[in-house]
């Protein structure tokens, strides 16, 4: 398969713990390259945008390295298969209210018609962050979920903000936490997960492998 011959680009924009994403890609039998270099990202078969930390800070780091333009070109114009994880998924939204103390929400990449809002459970037993393993219900089928048995659709989440999509067709899976939590979104060759597949044991590795073998 030609996709096996090419490397998988993991976008490096100055966040710390992306080793596990690299290790998981390697475990799936692919060749990961952590890079912020335009050429390395353009030459990849698949592109992964990891993410931990704060929304505004992450967007500032992407922009400071010109990676917002690189992703626009590689993913949106050239149509490479693209996976965004956790905060990476949130960056696809138009805006986030995270740390928007001055009332002005932070702007995201705006690839999805969606916004990021704080999770506000009414039940005091529901702690924030939403941290741990939660079950994901499929709204529709997607190649990234191929062959994962329904009983294994539990993944590791850790986040305090969640995505609200205005276009329901983008939503592939949801989790429940006092409210519906958008867990997987997808449009065309783009797929994104709020949970961490690289931390979700066999189910996560299956999802990641499905993505890496995906040629939309």
């Amino acid at each position, binding site marked *: 398969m030609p996709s096996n011959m090419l490397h998988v680009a993991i976008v490096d924009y100055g966040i710390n713990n992306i080793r596990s994403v690299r290790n998981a890609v390697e475990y799936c039998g692919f060749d990961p390259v952590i890079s912020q270099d335009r050429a390395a990202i353009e030459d990849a078969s698949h592109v992964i945008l990891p993410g931990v930390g704060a929304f505004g800070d992450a967007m500032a780091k992407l922009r400071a390295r010109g990676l917002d333009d690189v992703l626009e070109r590689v993913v949106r114009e050239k149509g490479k298969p693209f996976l965004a994880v956790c905060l990476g998924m949130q960056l696809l939204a138009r805006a986030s209210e995270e740390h928007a103390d001055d009332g002005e929400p932070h702007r995201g990449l705006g690839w999805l018609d969606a916004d990021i809002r704080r999770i506000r459970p009414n039940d005091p037993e529901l702690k924030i962050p939403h941290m741990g393993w939660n079950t994901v219900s499929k709204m529709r089928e997607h190649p990234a979920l191929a062959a994962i048995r329904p009983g294994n659709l539990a993944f590791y989440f850790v986040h305090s903000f969640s995505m609200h999509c205005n276009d329901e067709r983008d939503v592939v899976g949801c989790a429940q936490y006092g409210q519906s939590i958008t867990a997987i979104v997808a449009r065309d060759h783009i797929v994104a997960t709020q949970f*961490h597949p690289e931390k979700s*044991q066999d189910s*996560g590795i299956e999802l990641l492998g499905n993505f890496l073998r995906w040629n939309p």
Partner: protein
Amino acid sequence: MLKKRLIPKFLLRDGRLVKYVRFFENERMAGNPVTTAKVYNDYGVDELIVLDIVPSEASRARVVDVIERMSEEIFMPFTVGGGVRTPDDVAALLRAGADKVSVNSQAVRRPQFVREAARIFGDQCMTVSIDYRKVGPRHCNVFIDGGRERVPLDPVEWALRCQDLHCGEILLGSIDRDGTMDGYDLDMIHLLAGRLGVPLIVSGGCGSLQHAIDALESGASAVAISSMFLFTDHSPIKLRSHLASRGLNVRAGVGSRN
């Protein structure tokens, strides 16, 4: 809904797995941490906690090596701690493959460190570990430096303060019950879980399947378990299926990779 978490807790001394009773008594060697972690991974535990109990520059290098090796083959969250004092310490552990970093003594000595690190790395990265013991009939104090130094803080008040400092979760450990397998400090768990807005992991005393049920039903988000998994025939698989049969919401269908 969100599952209750089962978390083996590894104590490392010079990179080797050890276990004590009440922090200092009855040291036992407990094997190779990477090998043991792989076994637990096959059992489908939900996370791992790895704490360096006699931290030094040399032991940090060994812990980093252990975490790097674990993260090559084990794809679940790791919380790593022991001797964490600066943002550089946090960054080094995250780079090695940790997802969360546990801070204990330094949080007491310089509380603003928690806030600073949370701002840099995200609240979810910062776990504050709180060790405490009873010092009077109805009175507990926090102990730092691996249980050696008593500080005039009430564990509940201190945990709430850490939450205000933007920690992502609290790891609460009873020194009195550590390694005894006599059961968790349920009164304390009940008291703290009822007031805390971030997840609470509890540690110290689990020796039976019922102990884990009691802690989770008292409001803990997760149980940290060391002695019971290392020294009894209660495996994570057995615990999980027992919890599920008693109606607790835990991950099902894992731990049987075939």
